[in-house]
């Protein structure tokens, strides 16, 4: 091919053909063009003519092209030097692929082009390793193509499974909805039965209720009598001058009443027990003073732990824990607390219940009612369970498992990655977590939010947010880069920003060609 022919075939179609040719060939094609100019632009630099800047702003003698002085505002007169601030340099890289560099990379002592064309002053000698790089790149491309081929098959299978799962879920949902109707019907029946049984039971128990009420009253009277006795007893003890009145000084003598524990019972402190009067007679004492005093007196005798103190201690402990770990899983703590208090309440109920024996017939009726109640509870539970299941499935069906349901099989699985300090878990479509190896306190790094990949690969990135809050910072989030691989595997975890985690996950589900793969196109606008 002679030079003239190349110039003459300077048409777009021809150009692509040329590039194609060059990229395939391993030996460089010599075309006279200024240094740093791509083949496609070679025609714009005609040594026979003055050079006009490509933006048309200026015309200069041809010998000022690549003379290491920037004349054109668009940098086009210095394609082969570093004279222009925003110029670009083209290297052919025969055997690999052409490259366009910022012209400030030219002659900077760093070999940027694999053919070394960017370093030509002789100060830095670059090895031309385009062939090796090209070979390696082609091998890599072949390896990837192979991976993609296998991966795509697997993806197809996954997609079929995914669709099956989806259908199954749909079917299950329909079934559950039916079951729900059924269960609700049963529940209504059981409600009716319970109502009837309880009516009968109630009537039968009326007698026993009255009995019970009498018992309670008697007991209360007894207790109030005891309290009064106790009060009188203490009144007498306190009334040291026996004048039938308890006055401030009589209270002040007792350290027991040092409410703020400053070693002294002040007048104010004493007055609190006397209904803010200077003294109290027996009746006032019984009614007002003693109920206030009793905790102090019993505390002193070591029988009583004031509840306020106990909860304070707990608070302290809680704070300590928070401090130690910097942050606590508040939700979990709260739940625990609730359970605890429920337990306590039940326990007390049982203790306080007095055992009453019914006659045989009444007992029978009670048993029937109890059975009815239990059956109703069961049927309610059944409805609840079905509702839960329906909700789960509905939520799952709402999730985006990819255009072909190829990611659906990942739901419900978890994948682990372990580094020096932690084990990380990715449970796709659910959450990401971090577990220290030293203990097993799990930290939530984010809950499934959405697919967040770029437009050309929306399923290339998963986003998990609203993880556990960072001290003095945001809630933890995780971005999971999803790439093609022949097995499901979490391959790396890092924390590029504090509390922002980056996972990399391989799965055959991600094996497909992307609309614009990794910018191998070399733009060469004219």
């Amino acid at each position, binding site marked *: 091919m002679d030079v003239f022919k190349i110039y003459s075939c300077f048409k777009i179609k021809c150009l692509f053909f040329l590039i194609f040719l060059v990229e395939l060939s391993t030996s460089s094609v010599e075309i006279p063009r200024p240094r740093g100019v791509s083949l496609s632009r070679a025609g714009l630099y005609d040594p026979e003519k003055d050079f006009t800047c490509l933006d048309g702003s200026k015309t200069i003698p041809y010998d000022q092209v690549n003379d290491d002085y920037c004349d054109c505002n668009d940098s086009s007169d210095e394609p082969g030097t570093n004279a222009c601030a925003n110029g670009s340099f083209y290297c052919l890289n025969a055997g690999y692929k052409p490259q366009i560099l910022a012209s400030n990379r030219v002659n900077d002592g760093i070999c940027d082009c694999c053919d070394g064309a960017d370093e030509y002053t002789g100060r830095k000698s670059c090895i031309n390793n385009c062939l090796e790089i090209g070979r390696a790149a082609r091998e890599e491309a072949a390896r990837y193509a192979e991976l993609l081929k296998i991966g795509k098959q697997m993806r197809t299978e996954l997609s079929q499974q995914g669709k099956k799962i989806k259908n199954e879920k749909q079917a299950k949902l329909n079934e559950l909805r039916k079951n729900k109707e059924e269960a609700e019907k049963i529940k209504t029946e059981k409600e009716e039965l319970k109502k009837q049984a309880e009516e009968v039971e109630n009537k039968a128990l009326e007698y026993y209720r009255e009995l019970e009420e009498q018992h309670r009253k008697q007991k209360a009277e007894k207790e109030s009598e005891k309290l009064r006795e106790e009060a009188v007893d203490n009144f007498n003890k306190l009334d040291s001058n026996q004048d039938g009145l308890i006055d401030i000084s009589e209270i002040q003598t007792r350290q027991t009443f040092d409410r703020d524990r400053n070693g002294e019972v002040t007048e104010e402190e004493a007055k609190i027990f006397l209904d803010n009067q200077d003294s109290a007679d027996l009746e006032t004492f019984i009614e007002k003073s003693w109920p206030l005093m009793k905790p102090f007196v019993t505390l002193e005798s070591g029988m009583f732990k004031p509840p306020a103190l106990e909860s304070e201690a707990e608070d302290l402990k809680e704070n300590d824990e928070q401090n130690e770990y910097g942050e606590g899983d508040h939700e979990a703590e709260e739940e625990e607390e609730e359970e605890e208090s429920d337990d306590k309440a039940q326990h007390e109920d049982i203790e306080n219940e007095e055992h009453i024996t019914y006659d045989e017939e009444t007992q029978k009726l009670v048993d029937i009612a109890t059975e009815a109640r239990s059956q109703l509870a069961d049927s309610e539970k059944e409805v609840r369970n079905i509702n839960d299941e329906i909700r789960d499935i509905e939520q799952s069906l709402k999730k985006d498992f990819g255009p072909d349901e190829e990611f659906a099989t990942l739901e419900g699985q978890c994948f682990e990655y372990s580094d020096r300090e932690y084990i990380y878990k990715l449970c796709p479509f659910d959450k990401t977590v971090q577990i220290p190896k030293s203990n097993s306190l799990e930290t939530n790094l984010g809950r499934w939010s959405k697919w967040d990949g770029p437009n050309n690969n929306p399923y290339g990135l998963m986003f998990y947010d609203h993880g556990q809050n960072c001290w003095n910072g945001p809630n933890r989030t995780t971005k999971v880069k999803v790439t093609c691989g022949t097995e499901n595997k979490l391959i790396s975890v890092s*924390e590029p920003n*504090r509390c922002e985690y980056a996972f990399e996950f391989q799965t055959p589900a991600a094996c497909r060609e992307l609309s614009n793969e990794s910018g191998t196109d070399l733009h060469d606008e004219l």
Partner: protein
Amino acid sequence: MAKWAIILGVCLLNIVVAVDKNNFKSCEQSSFCRRLRKYQPGESTYHLDFSALHITDNVVEAQLINTQVPEVNLKLTLTAIIGNIFRVSVDEVNGLHSRYKPQFALNGDPQETKLEVVARNLEQVTVSSGDSKVVLTAKPLKIEFYTKDKLVNVVNSKGLFAFEHYRNKPAEGETDPQIQDDPGAWEENFKSHHDTKPRGPSAIAADFNFPNAERVYGLPEHGDSLSLKSTQQNNLDPYRLYNLDVFEYELDSTMAIYGAVPVVYAVSPQHSVGVFWHNAAETWVDIKNSKDTDIISSLVDFVNPSSKETFVDVRFMSESGVLDFFVLMGPTLKSAVKQYVSLTGVHGLPQLFTLAYHQSRWNYNDQDDVTTVVANFDIHNLPLDVMWLDIEYTEGKKYFTWDHIKFSNPDNMVSNLTSTGRKLVVIIDPHIKREGGYFLHEDALKHDFYVKNKDGSVYEGWCWPGSSSYLDFYNPSTVDYYKKLYSLDNFKGTSHDVWIWNDMNEPSVFNGPEITMPKDCVHYGGWEHRDVHNEYALAHTIGTYQGLRLRSPHKRPFILTRGHFAGSQRYTAMWTGDNDAKWSHLAVSFPMCLSEALGGISFCGADVGGFFNNPDTELLQRWYQAGIWLPFFRAHAHIDTKRREPYLFSDDIINRIRTALRLRYAHLPLWYTLFWEHETQGEPVLRPLLYHYPEKEVIDIDNTALIGNSVLVRPVSEPGVTSVEVYLPGGSNANWYDLSTFTLYHGGSYKLSVDLDTHVAFYRGGSIIPRKDRPRRSSTIMHRDPFTLYVALDNEKTASGTLYLDDYESYEYKNAKKYIYLLFNYSNNKLTSSLLDKTDYPTEEWIEKVVILGPPAGIKGAKLISKSLGTVDLETSYDKQMKYLTVRKPGVSVREPFSIELV
């Protein structure tokens, strides 16, 4: 880097939003300050005894007596120092303990010069040196300094001079006539800390009256305006000098922070004079400016305007040490600063890369992170020279070790960096982890290298590693050991391209009083920490400097320090510590660095973006646009902040930051030349307007700075503004060219409209600025690139400028005179280049372009004449829109003199 958030946070749980003042003493809480501040102006109890006057060629010595305690023997010494400086010292004769004089602040012993006795009798002695004169008055003590016959400074005019000699503790019930009954004199408590004060009170003070002065400047480091405020007004505490690690320091404050440089300059348009208070103990300085006097005296002034006299009173108070000060006689601010620098030294010419862009973060996670960040800068064509590693690179905060997992192959990481001309800086702090098996700790214990408690046991404090001890850099054997730690054999993974960041060297002690070391700790030589505190960081960095000199004898060391003292400039660059991502902190970085520059420390910068918290993108961009105009230019961020490397943002933001970075890199020849001139001529690199323009209008301007004498910058540090006000000095004949548009302005006040792209920066008409306009990925790659000269013409159509160059890294410029120092002159339409020094450096650098701002009309071309090229015709072109003339490609080497005549 006070990474305090974690520790404080545990206690407070809420986000701490500002400094906790309770952690730091007020004057009232500091026994000696409280005591000395109670003195009222009046007749001084101090008398000089001229009956036993001792006068030699250079020295006047006289006995000084406090009439309250006449048995105490004090001696006052007056000497003249070369360069129009006087020195006055007062010390005890045969005192109970010796008093400390800073060991490292002075750049060698100041050279004395001849004092002429002009007159003497028992009441007064008058001596002179050159045009300056000192009058010593005996009863009461008074020292007056005259330039020619103008009184410029009076010591003890208010009678507030004080000298607490060392004494035995008075018996119970006895009252000390001098100390009275101050409860903190013999022991002192602050919060839970107890200072045992075994040597009792030892404070000193002196007041300086500066007649006719309008302002005082100096006393860095404070988060405050350049011009010092009147203290005692509005309950303002005195300016405090006590190196402290202050978490989230506040602005507009006289509180002490990381550094202490006890020098002040009293300035009026007619005259400037300075005082360098040579003391390393805790120091408080009261300022009283006549402009701030109360309403009653203003009324008097109004009624009787002739009584209106401007003056400034400055009173230094220190806790211990010799009373020793230098009077810098000026008579201009420039000469006073040079006098100060002649005493305490300059920063030697740094390597070029240190003036380029530094990228830091607490912390880059691992070696791959470092490599990736650099790669991203390259991908986005953002220049970058230095990557930084904060404390997390170490194995468990043990300095001189690497985390073997995250930084498993530092050699490889470093060679990745240097392959593109980049460097690495790693942090080394002075606290040493107390851990068995850690070689440094074991060596320090074995050889007794640590600071001691007063009972002689090793002091333990709490810092990053947990329980730590502190190297005693006052011990010569400690320094001798310490400097060897930097050898490449010992500190594996480093190379001749790895440099050092010394942080936390106030010293910072998390559980110590005021977050520092207890004052009754003891250093080598028996000095209490009280005596030497402000010098600790300086002593630390001297050790590092010696270590790096030893390690890399052919390369100029680079060290960044946070704590600093007078003289630190000889060894280190400094930065303004842990600032905040707030507009106010962006703004204050200029007055802070200007103040440091007057205090001899030119190599100053502030964390770009702000250390604490997350800057919004406007603030970040503005911070880059401002940061390029401070000598030290580094972005840094707290570990809790979001990543903010510039490439992480949208294209418009990247482009703006790239423009800013490129401006910095283009001006590197200017910065480098200025540092050469700093080293050789003692001129600050960054200068306040008043340094060159003794105009009344500029005395309070500190949002504007001069880079040398040729560039004026007024960084935009206000959010969301569409215009800013700027004052251009020099009067209506002065020319100032907008640096981006080349628009010509004359001296005066302007309101300029700005957008996010605007840099408010000007070239001074009359200056020639050397630039390198080819953007590269790092400064190392620019070593051989050609220069463009920007010739900004003044009203007379003349201009001049200088250019310095060498190999940009070694000591050959000193050892073998391998450098080129050029003077460019432009007049009569002709630019000439001549060598200022008869030296040479075999450089390939050449002149690629000359840009003339405000050019003459009707130019058709240019003629270059040089020895090797002969006469060459050059093309010129005129840009009608921006009104500048370009001379195309002179192509001449900078090694030979040349001329370019416009024709």
